[in-house]
């Protein structure tokens, strides 16, 4: 019907696009902010949690996961990261501390998933500020899932919370501290808790009116191992509020390093840095 059949170059480009897994429907992109995605790239959080639940961790076993973040516009590095993580023994899952995309576009989130779905283990994400640019928040919810959620794996409850206050123009409701307090109050049978968010509370992009309350919620959680953040694109570990709460920041994909995190006992942990 259409005249592309007369042009071998165009025809092969089009067929290539189709072969790459984009159905004609998604290729006909309504807008870069259009978040339609193939069925297997929707609700990735729920799908990865289901995969994780299929390989439960026996009580008492050490928890071991990869911690990274800020994949953004670093797709080539993502490919190398996957290759490296797949060679690590005893890894149970990977955690990405937000900024999956750079421009908040659904296709970017699909590109990152195109790499990360090659991991031998499931991966889980928390939303970052770049994922909320333009209509990114809707794209993230469509492709990954809820902005605030929690899950229990083995002896540990993970609480993942949207702390990208600046993207809401500091409306005083993000992060949702009451929701966080509710999550921290109920360990769901787990022995310890880990909180994961993109923007660390000591950062300028965190709502200053909620900072004290948020930090207090963590401080008042005796079984908290640490809070894990991204946003700063570099590794750090410390107690910025000098209140006994440890904050660990991830490398970005660009830094070609990640952390292997091992947690055991009540709240003992070890961070091992891996270059790739």
């Amino acid at each position: 019907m259409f005249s592309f059949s007369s042009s071998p170059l165009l025809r092969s480009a089009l067929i290539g696009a189709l072969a790459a897994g984009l159905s004609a429907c998604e290729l006909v992109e309504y807008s870069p902010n259009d978040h339609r995605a193939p069925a297997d790239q929707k609700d990735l959080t729920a799908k990865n949690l289901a995969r994780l639940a299929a390989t439960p961790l026996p009580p008492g076993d050490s928890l071991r996961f990869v911690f990274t973040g800020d994949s953004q516009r670093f797709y080539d590095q993502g490919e190398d990261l996957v290759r490296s993580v797949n060679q690590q023994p005893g890894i149970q899952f990977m955690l990405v501390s937000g900024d999956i995309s750079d421009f908040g576009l659904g296709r970017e989130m699909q590109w990152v998933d195109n790499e990360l779905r090659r991991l031998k283990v499931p991966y889980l994400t928390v939303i970052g500020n770049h994922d909320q640019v333009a209509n990114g928040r809707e794209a993230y919810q469509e492709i990954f899932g809820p902005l605030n959620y929690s899950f229990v794996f083995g002896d540990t409850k993970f609480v993942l919370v949207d702390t990208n206050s600046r993207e809401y123009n500091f409306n005083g409701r993000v992060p949702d501290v009451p929701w966080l307090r509710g999550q921290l109050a109920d360990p769901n049978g787990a022995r310890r808790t880990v909180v994961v968010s993109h923007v660390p509370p000591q950062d300028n992009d965190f709502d200053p009116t909620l900072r004290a309350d948020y930090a207090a919620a963590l401080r008042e959680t005796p079984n908290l191992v640490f809070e894990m953040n991204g946003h700063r694109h570099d590794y750090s570990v410390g107690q910025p509020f000098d209140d006994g709460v440890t904050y660990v920041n991830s490398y970005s994909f660009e830094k070609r390093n990640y952390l292997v995190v091992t947690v055991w006992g009540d709240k003992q942990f070890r961070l091992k840095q891996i270059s790739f």
Partner: protein
Amino acid sequence: MAASLLLAALLSAAAPSAAPWPNGPDPSDSVRVATETLATTGPAAPAPARTMRYQPRHLLLQTGGGLGMLSVGGGLSFAHRHLDVDGLLGYVPAEHAGTALTIASVKLKYAPWELPLGSKLALQPLAVGVYGSYTFGLRNPGKPDQYPNDYYWFSRTMRYGPVLGSSLSYALPAAASGRARRLTTYYELATNDLYAISYYQNHRALSLPDIATLALGLKLEF
């Protein structure tokens, strides 16, 4: 490498199209030149004022290409219909983008060749061009003072990029004025600035099909 050359070629391809048409307007061009005054003025009279009236030469209906689920518009043709300047207004319902989007765009398209296929059909095997668009209705385009300066270097609302396509035209009965009318179906492969920079920096992980979008459209020339 070949791909970035292709993109560069697409971007530069619009340049020659800015040149004026070599042979002056003909009945198929969008410009109607009032020459009737020549008959009533003698050779000694001052040169007649050439009044040029632009009018839409075609209407467009399109889906995709990053310019709307449905976009409508019109355009002018120049250079014996080889060069089109189009304006489109597109719409994306909230179910596909989170909020309802309205996208205004301008497109410049140059099709150097036209191959007749029988008496009624003609094929334009290649068209290259550029477009720019502005999106209204985004959830978080950034408010004044929301971000420190240069927090995000890119625009959330303005996109631009190259297009490449071809089209097939079917001749309709000519208008009473003698102007040729025809219906054209076209497709365009396109990308945008943000996809292009992502691809440019990630040749291993991303491919051209990853960053391609497809538009399908109808053009009525009248």
